[in-house]
């Protein structure tokens, strides 16, 4: 108790200091709320936007830097951040106008030149841990460099992007941490900047950085945008394991625990006094992929029979204690153009219908299937999901399933080599657009190399990326989902929620729990 009491006294005194400082400034400096502590098991690769492609890094960057656009909590469409506006002037050209008077927290002016510099160095550094791959529309196809003329800066306030190909998702890309704007007078052009020296223009600035232990953010007094911080100081404490994180939120050592506690832990915490489990819409996607190179599943009827049998409600309830939502499409709910194609095509789980599918195709039953999963990447509950799915298939009498598992590193090789007929994977989107669930998955075998290829799919993917009319694009995205339900390169399983656990007195948490998975520190306060 003494420790908690003394910590509480110190927090209160520090919060008072933060408030005093804040009162003297503008924008972010107006933050007067009490300091609060976030606990997370996420890790941080780099605080330099050119050096990371992971949740932990991106979340800090979203709070430290400005991007041209931002997605407000609970919404899906980007609005201005550093930019007053960004608009397509044609399908391959985007023009952005910056807000007046932008400055970095070190006092340097932020201009269009900094925007160009940020993208250019990201592509030039092409860090092995980075996400420059997302800037492909601006990249020279033959080099790790910005394509000639890809970005123009006619004046200090204007940035014009010329894309390699029509791409309606580009505005969404401008909301990601990859496109964070850095100070060209501080960041080197050809290498990463040390984490403890990063400077941004976002609502918070980095006050202390202890790698793997904690980050301390303080309100950026020079920030005058819409993301005004409610608290003057935020502590982010990193945990290497969910067990001590659960203990910490239970004991009040942290104010919020966000990513990642298991469904079992979350259910336990539901009944703890002073602790609130808050659930928001998520965009995590869990699915089972068919390896088309394997004879067992090369016949479409076999894959369709699996899609006909799978009982997603039971998986969600029994394997995940009801903490996930059954998924009936490759595109999660909430995205433009989404439709539950698997629901429409297969309806309720029906082993008899599956039996007919196999019989009509002349397939001898039971079909031997090897089902693979990894227990070391997607949480401990995947083993329950794998067993539940195998049980559903076996009990139909149509399949004889062998379950195999492997540690994540080995698993990646095994599924590409065809060791499994059906294997589990998970996905979080880079951008909030349906295409992020389509192109990486179904164009020529997808990133998971399952050997599925369909010329019509490839053509439709090109069309939806180029289509500027929203209704027409939604139509194409719907067609693609229908084709996936017909060809079954994968079987959707469930969509995850964005869940945080907060102590009493924490406000604004619910508003930030949305499919972007951006934890908007500026919206959170402690009373």
């Amino acid at each position: 108790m003494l420790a908690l009491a003394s910590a509480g006294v110190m927090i209160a005194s520090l919060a008072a200091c933060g408030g005093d400082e804040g009162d003297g400034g503008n924008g972010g400096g107006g933050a007067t709320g009490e300091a609060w502590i976030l606990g997370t098991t996420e890790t941080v690769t780099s605080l330099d936007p050119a050096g990371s492609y992971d949740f932990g890094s991106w979340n800090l960057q979203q709070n430290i830097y400005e991007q041209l656009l931002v997605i407000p909590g609970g919404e899906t469409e980007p609005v201005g951040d550093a930019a007053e506006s960004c608009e397509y002037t044609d399908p391959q050209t985007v023009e952005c106008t910056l807000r007046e008077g932008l400055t970095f927290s070190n006092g340097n002016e932020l201009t269009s030149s900094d925007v160009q510099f940020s993208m250019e160095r990201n592509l030039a550094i092409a860090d092995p841990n980075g996400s420059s791959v997302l800037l492909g529309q601006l990249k020279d196809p033959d080099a790790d460099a910005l394509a000639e003329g890809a970005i123009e800066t006619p004046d200090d306030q204007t940035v014009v992007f010329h894309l390699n190909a029509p791409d309606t998702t580009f505005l969404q890309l401008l909301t990601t941490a990859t496109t964070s704007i850095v100070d060209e007078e501080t960041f080197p052009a050809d290498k990463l900047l040390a984490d403890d020296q990063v400077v941004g223009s976002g609502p918070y600035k980095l006050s202390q950085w202890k790698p793997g232990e904690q980050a301390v953010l303080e309100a950026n007094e020079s920030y005058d945008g819409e993301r005004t911080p409610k608290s003057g100081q935020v502590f982010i404490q990193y945990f290497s394991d969910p067990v001590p994180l659960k203990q910490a939120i239970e004991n009040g050592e942290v104010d919020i625990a966000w990513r990642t506690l298991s469904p079992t832990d979350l259910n336990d915490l539901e009944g703890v006094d002073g602790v609130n489990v808050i659930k928001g819409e998520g965009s995590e996607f869990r699915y089972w992929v068919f390896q088309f190179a394997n004879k067992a599943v090369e016949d479409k009827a076999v894959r369709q029979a699996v899609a006909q049998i799978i009982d997603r409600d039971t998986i969600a309830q029994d394997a995940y204690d009801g903490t996930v939502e059954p998924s009936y499409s490759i595109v999660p709910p909430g995205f433009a153009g989404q439709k539950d194609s698997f629901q429409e095509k297969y309806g309720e789980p029906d082993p008899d219908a599956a039996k007919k599918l196999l019989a009509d195709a002349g397939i001898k039953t039971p079909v031997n299937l090897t089902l693979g999963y990894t227990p070391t990447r997607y949480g401990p509950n995947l083993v329950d999901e794998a067993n539940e799915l195998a049980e559903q298939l076996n009990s139909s009498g149509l399949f004889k399933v062998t379950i195999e598992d492997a540690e994540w590193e080995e698993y990646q090789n095994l599924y590409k080599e065809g060791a499994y007929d059906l294997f589990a994977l998970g996905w979080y989107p880079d951008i909030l657009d349906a295409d992020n669930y389509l192109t990486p998955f179904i164009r020529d075998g997808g990133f998971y190399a399952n050997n599925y290829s369909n010329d019509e799919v490839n053509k439709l993917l090109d069309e939806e990326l180029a289509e500027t009319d929203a209704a027409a694009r939604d139509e194409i995205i719907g067609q693609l989902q229908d084709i996936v339900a017909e060809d079954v390169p994968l079987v959707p399983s469930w969509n995850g929620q964005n869940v945080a656990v907060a102590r009493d007195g924490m406000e604004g948490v619910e508003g930030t729990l949305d499919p972007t998975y951006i934890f908007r520190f500026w919206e959170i306060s402690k009373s």
Partner: protein
Amino acid sequence: MSARSGSLPRYVAQRLLLIIPTIWLIVTFVFIMLRVAPGDPVSAAVGGKLDEAALDARRAALGLDRPLIVQYFDYLGDVATFNFGQTISDNRSLISIVVDNGGATLTLTLGAFLFALLVGIPLGLLAGRYRDSAGDVGIRIFGVVTYAAPVFFIGLLMQLLVAGPLGMPTSDIASPITKFEVEPVTHILLLDAVIAGNWDAAWDVFLHHILPCITLGLLLCGVFIRLVRVNVLQTLKGDYVEAARARGIAEKHVIRRHAFRNALVPVVTVVGLMVALTLSGAVLTERTFNWPGLGTQLYNYLIARDYAAVQGLVTFFAVVVVLVSLLIDIINALIDPRVRY
């Protein structure tokens, strides 16, 4: 005396020279094991996100596509010039990891040793003195259980049964506020808090040490109990003890001055041997208590398949174990006239 004083420096010099092949063997072993294990830093970080071509491009950028023998000799060259480079997964220098996180492991292991010595030795002495009594049996069972129980299990019990009711902290080396307030001078947080004269912070750090140190200390405690008990039993049978009794010296003086004191000499040797055990136990203890020490770092880098980090940290651990063993040998030679090299 002159022979002994002449042989010890030679022995120390030999042992110091032996560090080189020892480290080479360890570096080679770790290098091979990491490459034999499935996966690499790229697949650990962005596997399941990018296609194989993109993954290969990143491997090439890190030089992981070069022949293993080339990578091996490059690495050996770096180690020979004390250039341990940077981690692959988060661009930290190996030196900064040891400096920033070594202090937490140091205070954890020292605290654990202190607890083990303060608890284990008296219990071992008592058990030996009152052999086969109910107390002896109880102490022996306690020693076996604490040695055999997994560290993470003891840690979880501590968190659930002790920390909760007493309101003690269950994770980390200090509260985030304390870590923010205390300027790193020595990078040993407890010491830095004292140097800063920040007694609230020092108390906070001390409280955070209690459960992790007891957890790790219990592992060591079992070893000390059994060792000291056996030594007491042996010394009580010694001729010099019989002689002391025959001279009419009071039993309590015989026990204290002759039996107990001599029974403690082997403990010094065992302390050296236990450094390796302690460091391995520290990895598990640090994980259980989210302790920001080298064990946690090693675990995280291992998961990330960060070759540079794992190789560097294991090499550092190996050097520590070798040097501590050497130091213990020297101390043994100095305190025990019978030791010869």
